[in-house]
């Protein structure tokens, strides 16, 4: 299967990522007789949302009924004729004449793959949310807590505090409640007036009714169980010597303090743009989603023979990601041997459903705009966790003349640690944008060069790319 030959291996269609969009794309391509190669960083299919779905460690009563959809999608993928390669890190991608070249790291060895067509399904990450003390052990993201719940049925020993904005905060609170361990309180950072948006935008609210009712149900269940939901908060700190001990927050002008052993934070998700940026694709700032998105055309293509789908392209949720995965597969089929009448109808139907769902998404984006802007955070707030650089450090470099992200990086080492800027890139650009009074598009983001995933020198030495280049 995965012999480490010096010559490259070849795929007609390569898919990166086995979350909802990758699974849907691969399954649909297989149905049309094309056998895609699917590379995934994780050990099992499902991505983050359907993690561990093949051997669930928590009851559906806890994880929620949506998890069942993931089981069906993964089952269909397992039955499909697909070359599935888990535990495979794609650590570089580049365009070559006939398509793409990929460096794939598997079990400590790197191999080169060539693909004629490429579908990027690499997904999203949680929006980095810096506040004083967020680097303390005992502060984790709500997404991390969900990983622990899905992967091993793990719950916090002591009731945690949840903080942030957006649906995942309430979903996690509800899941913990179902498991018999509700949080002590939820600090909801969503400004009150944003909760009233559905009333002012009835058409979007109608399209979003499924999401809104689900959220309302979870919120009511938490209130009934006695979980305090605190609002009108405009500042937050985590305090502790070696681990989290207390949290402080400012509510309607008054500072309040609570003991805490575990603080789970979340302010939404953003596309992970390392792969798309390393390919040199154009990205544009999306004000509603407050993030950079790769530019795509109506067929979800970002370049010739290249599609970017799912939450790695724009946040739309798991169901939309599956739709986009299927749509990209249909585009590949169209360019390969054309579409039948049935396939064209399938495509048109999916496009209509997608348009409706994106209408609902606009309302959710507006309701859960990220709270507590970076330039409002105290100067001791760490922005780059890897290099331990604070907002004050970055501001100093900006006043010393750093005029853009690449200069800021060169001046401070911001973004040069092991996470390769994943945790600080967006906030560095936003800080520059506010200080220099330019739009995020004018500021841009620093350049991404391979490796886009962590790789050791030893692993690099096994790379057949190195051998190829040497000859």
């Amino acid at each position: 299967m995965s012999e480490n030959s010096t010559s490259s291996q070849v795929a007609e269609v390569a898919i990166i990522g086995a979350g909802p969009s990758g699974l849907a794309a691969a399954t649909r391509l297989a149905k049309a007789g094309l056998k895609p190669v699917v590379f995934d960083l994780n050990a099992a299919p499902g991505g983050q949302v359907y993690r561990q779905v093949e051997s669930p460690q928590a009851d559906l009563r806890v994880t929620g009924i949506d998890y069942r959809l993931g089981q069906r999608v993964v089952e269909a993928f397992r039955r499909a004729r697909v070359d599935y390669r888990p535990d495979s890190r794609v650590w570089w991608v580049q365009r070559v004449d006939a398509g793409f070249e990929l460096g794939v790291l598997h079990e400590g060895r790197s191999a080169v793959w060539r693909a004629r067509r490429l579908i990027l399904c690499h997904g999203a990450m949680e929006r980095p949310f810096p506040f004083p003390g967020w680097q303390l052990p005992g502060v984790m993201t709500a997404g991390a807590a969900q990983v622990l719940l899905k992967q091993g049925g793990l719950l916090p020993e002591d009731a945690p505090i949840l903080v942030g904005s957006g649906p995942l905060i309430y979903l996690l609170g509800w899941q913990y409640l179902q498991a018999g361990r509700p949080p002590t309180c939820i600090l909801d950072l969503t400004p009150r007036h944003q909760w009233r948006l559905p009333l002012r935008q009835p058409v979007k609210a109608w399209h979003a009714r499924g999401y809104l009712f689900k959220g309302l149900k979870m919120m009511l269940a938490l209130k009934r169980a006695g979980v305090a939901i605190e609002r009108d908060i405009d500042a937050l700190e985590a305090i502790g010597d070696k681990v989290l001990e207390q949290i402080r927050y400012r509510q309607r002008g008054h500072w309040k303090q609570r003991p805490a052993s575990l603080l789970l934070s979340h302010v939404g998700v953003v596309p992970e743009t390392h792969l798309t940026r390393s390919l040199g694709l154009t990205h544009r700032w999306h004000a509603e989603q407050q993030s950079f998105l790769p530019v795509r055309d109506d067929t979800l293509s970002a370049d010739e023979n290249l599609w970017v789908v799912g939450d790695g392209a724009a946040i739309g949720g798991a169901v939309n990601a599956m739709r986009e995965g299927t749509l990209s597969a249909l585009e590949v089929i169209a360019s390969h041997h054309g579409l039948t009448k049935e396939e064209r109808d399938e495509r048109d139907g999916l496009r209509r459903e997608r348009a409706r769902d994106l209408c609902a998404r606009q309302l959710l984006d507006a309701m859960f705009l990220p709270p507590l802007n970076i330039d409002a955070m105290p100067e001791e707030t760490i922005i780059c966790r890897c290099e331990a650089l604070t907002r004050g450090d970055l501001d100093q470099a900006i006043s010393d003349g750093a005029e853009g992200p690449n200069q800021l990086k060169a001046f401070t080492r911001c973004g040069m640690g092991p996470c390769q800027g994943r945790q600080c890139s967006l906030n560095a650009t936003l800080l520059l944008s506010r200080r220099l009074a330019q739009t995020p598009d004018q500021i841009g983001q620093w350049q991404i060069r391979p490796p886009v995933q962590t790789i050791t020198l030893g692993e690099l030495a096994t790379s057949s790319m190195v051998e190829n280049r040497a000859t």
Partner: protein
Amino acid sequence: MFRRLPETASDSAEVTLWVDGEPRQVGATLSVAAALLQQHGWAEYRLHHDGTPRAPLCMMGVCHDCLITIDGEPNRQGCLVIVKDGMRIETQMPAAQPTPGASTG
């Protein structure tokens, strides 16, 4: 610390993990970082180069704060490696780190 739900939905096979030389029984589906958060907690997980303690933040391969020594190899992303029976884990605290070049077998 985290603890396991009283009853899990499917198999709950366990493996033995050696954490800083101590044997620990952990769920076979867990990542190294998840197993540590269950058995060891987030205190004394890792000391950052600026001298501050750190522990996993994201658990999905982004933050790199879960770096840990696995079978003698330092700075592995603990959240992306699934536990295996007999795996040797060293938390990256100065006191627990093996001397460079010393045999770890």
